[in-house]
């Protein structure tokens, strides 16, 4: 493996890991804010208990999310200085905005929320969790604006030194890839958060631990999950069309479509189909479906990988411009198939709720617990589809990944740091997962009333809640 390959492996490993925590943070922050709002409106103690219960899971999760995000920010400079030099003028701006507009908001108000229970008025305290939720969603907004620029660069010129230079900042935020990609990320985060909330609630309902309380969280989770997964599928479809327009390789590779077709069918499975195998055995072909997914037209044309590659060679010089087809094909299917599974789960839950049988349906509750990992796999597969499909470009059409790494950083350093991160992340992952599971299975604290202000005045520590 070359130095660039190691650097890519490091980036892929650390960003996939980071992305296990990001959508859960966004989703859980929103759901916790929702629970606290319901408590604020209704005054029912059950919602206060749920707020604290799921808030604790949020806090444990944020800790790991934040520190792994730091690694991502540093890595552009340490491992990809060629890239940083080339695009810093454009790519750095949304990154800096993320820090100023979003990350400060999220971090400062999370501290206020955790420790502010007895010190802030109820209304202000409610506002702090909403600030956390908005901050985490804004964070994703700026990161997606930066990422979308790599998929479809807009609003820039190349200066005399051959570097990208920002000319229109609004273009970054009106980039169609950004708009649809961002919607997709937010919806996917709501899916992750609500599936986790549903699964945890189901675990408790099965054991009849505080069923009157967890019944409510299960209900809210289903109410968020059903529209979120439905919209995520619609938005994902539109995103596919946009990507097919700007990054035709990405979509052609997702079907392992080597020859141009019109109309094009979608295969459910295939045997073979790596980059060396141009005639994989496709199984169960659905006519016209690929045309629909890629172009929104019944008889749409999808240009094959071979033709695209020849076209790119003419445009950008000799080289191989086809991404890893095997990863592309399967990450797309894993994402799509599991999304359908989650959608069916949401439908089932909604039907049970309507029949008022959710808390008694042993099978549903069992499946809901098992479903917890599914949305995480979906979001990882989604990122693999997006980022692998961009290769061999780091910025589509502008810079190749092989020209983007740090020229002065040798393989040995990268391998060393990769090993360090993998070990550290593994330990953190195990501890985090174990703690989350432990706290998720904990019985609810007994009924509690809100502390009276004068009581709070005397509270010297008030740190019991989380720390």
């Amino acid at each position, binding site marked *: 493996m070359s130095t660039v390959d190691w650097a890519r492996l490091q980036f892929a490993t650390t960003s996939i890991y980071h992305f296990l925590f990001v959508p859960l943070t966004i989703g859980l922050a929103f759901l916790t804010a929702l629970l606290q709002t319901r408590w604020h409106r209704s005054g029912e103690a059950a919602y206060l208990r749920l707020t604290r219960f799921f808030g604790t899971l949020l806090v444990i999760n944020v800790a790991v999310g934040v520190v792994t995000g730091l690694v991502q920010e540093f890595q552009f400079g340490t491992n990809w200085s060629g890239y940083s030099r080339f695009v810093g003028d454009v790519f750095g701006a949304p990154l800096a905005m993320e820090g100023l507009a979003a990350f400060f908001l999220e971090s400062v108000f999370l501290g206020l929320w955790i420790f502010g229970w007895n010190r802030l008025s109820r209304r202000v305290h409610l506002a702090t969790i909403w600030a956390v939720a908005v901050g985490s969603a804004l964070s994703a907004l700026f990161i997606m604006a930066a990422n979308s620029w790599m998929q479809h660069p807009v609003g820039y010129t190349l200066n005399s030194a051959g570097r990208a230079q920002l000319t229109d900042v609004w273009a970054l935020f009106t980039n169609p890839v950004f708009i649809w990609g961002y919607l997709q990320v937010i919806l996917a985060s709501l899916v992750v958060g609500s599936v986790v909330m549903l699964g945890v609630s189901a675990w408790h309902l099965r054991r009849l631990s505080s069923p009157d309380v967890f019944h409510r969280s299960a209900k809210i989770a289903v109410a968020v999950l059903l529209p979120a997964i439905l919209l995520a599928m619609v938005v994902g479809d539109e995103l596919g069309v946009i990507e097919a327009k700007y990054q035709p390789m990405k979509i052609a590779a997702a079907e392992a479509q080597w020859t141009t077709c019109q109309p094009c069918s979608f295969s459910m499975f295939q045997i073979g189909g790596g980059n060396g195998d141009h005639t994989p055995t496709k199984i169960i072909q659905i006519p016209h479906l690929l045309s629909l997914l890629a172009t929104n037209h019944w008889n749409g044309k999808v240009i094959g990988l071979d033709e695209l590659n020849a076209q790119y060679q003419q445009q950008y010089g000799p080289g191989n411009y086809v991404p890893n087809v095997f990863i592309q094909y399967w990450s797309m299917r894993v994402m799509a198939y599991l999304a359908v599974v989650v959608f069916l789960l949401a439908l089932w839950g909604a039907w049970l709720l309507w029949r008022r049988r959710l808390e008694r349906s042993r099978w549903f509750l069992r499946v809901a617990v098992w479903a917890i990992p599914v949305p995480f796999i979906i979001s990882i597969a989604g990122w693999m589809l997006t980022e692998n499909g961009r290769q061999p470009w780091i910025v589509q059409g502008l810079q190749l990944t092989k020209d983007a790494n740090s020229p002065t950083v040798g393989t040995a350093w990268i391998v060393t740091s990769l090993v360090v991160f993998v070990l550290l992340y593994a330990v953190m992952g195990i501890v985090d997962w174990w*703690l989350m599971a432990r706290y998720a299975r*904990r019985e609810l604290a007994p009924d509690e009333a809100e502390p009276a202000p004068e009581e709070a005045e005397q509270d010297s520590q008030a740190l019991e809640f989380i720390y």
Partner: protein
Amino acid sequence: MTLAEVWFVLIAVLWVGFLVLEGFDFGVGALHGVLGRDEAGRETALGTIAPVWDGNEVWLVVAGAGMFAAFPGWYATMFSAMYLALILLLVALILRGVAIVLRGKQEGPGWRRRWSAALIAGSVLAPLLIGIALGNLLRGLPIGSDQEFTGSFWDLLQPYALYTGLTVVVLCLLHAAAFVGLKTVGPVHDRADRTGRMLGPLAAAVVVGFAAWTLATASPGAGGWIVALVAVAAVLVAAVAIGRGRDGLAFGATAVTTAAVVGSIFVNLYPRVMVSTTGPADDLTIQNTSSAHYSLTVMTWVAGVLLPVVLIYQGWTYHVFRRRLGAPVAATPTAQIPSPRPAAEQPAGKHRTDPGRTHARDH
């Protein structure tokens, strides 16, 4: 003043702000075992930073992202040249960040001891590495005419840079002693005072050495002299004030010292951003590493609008948590023996009535 110069100042302010704020977080992390004799005391010490450390750390994130956006050439050269040091810094920051949050999530001395060890290691290593990195910016690293680093890892370990690292660590410890003195009452406060009295003279000596070495290294202008004098004056005030009941003055003085020490690096760098030992022609400067005018304009607007807002709500956080924290006079049995339910599971609405815990009072 060009926009690029504005951004140089902003980056300097972000680094200074980061070390003034996170400096006491680092110090409290490193000293929490010393400041709290028992678990309750350690909790009190950590309680002083618990609500704010995460927000403080964002200053680093914004400083890094600001360099990326405003000076991509600087960011690319510095971060790739200091590769191993920065990876180690990340490890340190990860360890301590996770440790602060997870330490209290389980009962049991083994769990707490392990996370405490991680917290101490991370809290010492992080400021040390940041200091070494800042020292290297001013002392210079081998950089070629293509702005690429031409040296090896060992070039980072030059005496001036190591000494800068040491200075930053010592300052973080003193700053933390002053902060905990300001934020607590009872035995933790007393231990912070005692620690501060011991650290004061040491820090004064270290800062005087740093100021002298910096002046000898940098051929400073008037600004360089002023900031060096401020650093020395402030650390002397801190050394005198700390442990003598002047909690507010002591903390103010350690904050000024930290700001002056970190600021002196940037004051002496100007108009360079990173010195090249290959030759002055290869120095990285504000001019030859900055982004173009349009990009800087956009960012200036964004920072101009948002930074004051951030300062207001972050300042408000400190106001909300302004009360001093107390701790038992001596180790009470309740602090040692695990309660039936872990602390984190206590409903916050029902306060534990540990007889040993004194009530907080406003200051």
